[in-house]
């Protein structure tokens, strides 16, 4: 991938050729791994099937190991069926499906990390909601999934994607940016528009702390996947409308890295600050681990 290191490289590559973004990413990966691009596409189709299945299993409900979360995806989707909703079916489904994946994750069910397990909801949640609402088939949806994966890989080349290193911005922020890029691609955005969708989304998650109650990937992670899914939809919507990120995506990623470095350890997955250290957060932790 000598030629494809940054988002600027990607826009350049897209400009000079006729290949769409998903083909650029698959060709690069195929060359690196010495396997046919079509074989990779097949692997993505298989992963998409696991993703859809994790949404389905998540919607069925059930509590997490700690008993702290579970059933919210089902609540959101059932409320939607009643018809009285704010934001329309696409929005309601994107929220419910993103939460569903994280609920399944909190039960130690099988999910596909995207880019991490704690941020695994937005990519499948938003892409599945869009594909259902617009009647997009799996083969076409997977093209958006490849673009999302490629965007994540470009970020990961410059930033460590973990709450411990960069806070939640480096997990859910990146997951939402990946989803925004995939959504913009499926909605017909050109390569620059897709990159702006990701940049607009990521910059609106900067500074997001990783402060999980009792150290679990449950509160606020599960519901937050539903909320950051909204940012991904907003990123795609605004970029397709012609809104441009003043700060280029590569620089937004650099800003994310520097903010992550500046964050105290207490807000990077250690459960030593933020929501985890509120009176209620402490009580939950103490009850769970029988600390007196």
């Amino acid at each position, binding site marked *: *991938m000598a030629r494809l*290191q940054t988002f600027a490289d990607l826009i350049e590559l897209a400009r000079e050729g006729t290949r769409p973004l998903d083909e650029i990413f698959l060709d*690069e*990966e195929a060359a*690196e*791994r010495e*396997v046919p691009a079509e*074989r*990779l596409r097949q*692997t*993505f189709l298989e*992963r998409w099937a696991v993703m859809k299945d994790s949404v389905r299993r998540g919607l069925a409900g059930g509590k997490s*190991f700690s008993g702290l979360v579970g059933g919210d995806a089902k609540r959101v989707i059932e409320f939607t069926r009643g018809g009285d909703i704010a934001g329309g079916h696409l929005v309601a489904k994107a929220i419910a499906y993103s939460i569903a994946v994280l609920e*399944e*994750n*909190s039960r*130690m*069910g*099988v*999910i*596909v*990390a*995207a*880019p*991490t*397990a*704690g941020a*695994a909801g937005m*990519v499948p949640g938003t892409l599945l909601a869009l594909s259902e609402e617009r009647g997009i088939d799996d083969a076409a949806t997977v093209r958006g*999934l*490849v673009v*999302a*994966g*490629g965007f*994540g*890989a*470009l970020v*990961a*080349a410059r930033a*460590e*994607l*973990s*709450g*411990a*290193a960069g806070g939640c911005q*480096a997990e859910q922020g990146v997951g939402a940016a*990946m989803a925004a890029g995939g959504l913009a691609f499926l909605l017909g955005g050109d390569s620059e528009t897709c990159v702006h969708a990701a940049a607009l989304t990521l910059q609106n998650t900067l500074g997001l702390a990783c402060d*999980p109650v*009792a*150290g*679990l*990937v*449950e509160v606020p992670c599960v519901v937050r996947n539903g909320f950051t899914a909204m940012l991904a939809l907003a990123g795609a919507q605004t970029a397709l409308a012609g809104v441009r990120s003043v700060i280029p995506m590569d620089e937004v990623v650099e800003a994310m890295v520097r903010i992550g470095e500046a964050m105290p*350890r207490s807000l*990077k*997955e*250690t*459960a*030593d600050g933020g929501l985890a250290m509120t009176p209620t957060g402490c009580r939950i932790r103490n009850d769970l*681990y029988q600390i007196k």
Partner: protein
Amino acid sequence: MISLLDIVGPVMVGPSSSHTAGACRLSHVALALLEEDPVEARFELHSAFAKTMRGHGTDRALVAGALGMEVDDERIKDALDLARARGIAFTFKPKNMGPEAHPNSVAIHLRGRTRSISILGASIGGGMIEIREVDGFPVSLTARDPCILLFYEDRPGMVMRASEIIGRRGINIASMEVLRRGKGDQAFMRIDLDAPLPHEDVAALRQMPGVHRVHVLDRVAGGAPIT
């Protein structure tokens, strides 16, 4: 560049790619280096790894890896009971590895019937891992691509003989690292390969005079299972 399949992936059991999947892979690497069934597993956990161990199932995942489970194995949640049933002793304790250590660092000590191994590794996000020490030797290993580790007596010609065995097979060496404790003392070689080395060549490496042990790490932690 990082693989797209590491970003949209791994397919894994929750709840945390760093603390569950990464932890599982780290001890899976230790198991691959031990090359026999463990009878005892000791884990020392640093910082974030120690603080959120139970909530993230890190304890179960570490033991699951030592039992040879992959990250998508639904038995990970039962790993502690499975280990007890097999008579494998395991202990966890927090250890402050200092401000420079990655927050998700763990030292893994596995003991089998005939040998022991110790590694120090970190889970660096999204299920990706890095091994930083093997039996006290500083290394940098991702365990994604085919890799050979040689422990041997420091003497002239070892690098040449090892690379000749690999070169004869037409396999390209992607990168390598050579270290020693002191002149004529125990030495260590890490050889990253573009393709897995056939068994007979590994056997030839093992028969080289002065070689103590040879380990094969072939895509233990993800990498390219696709053919």
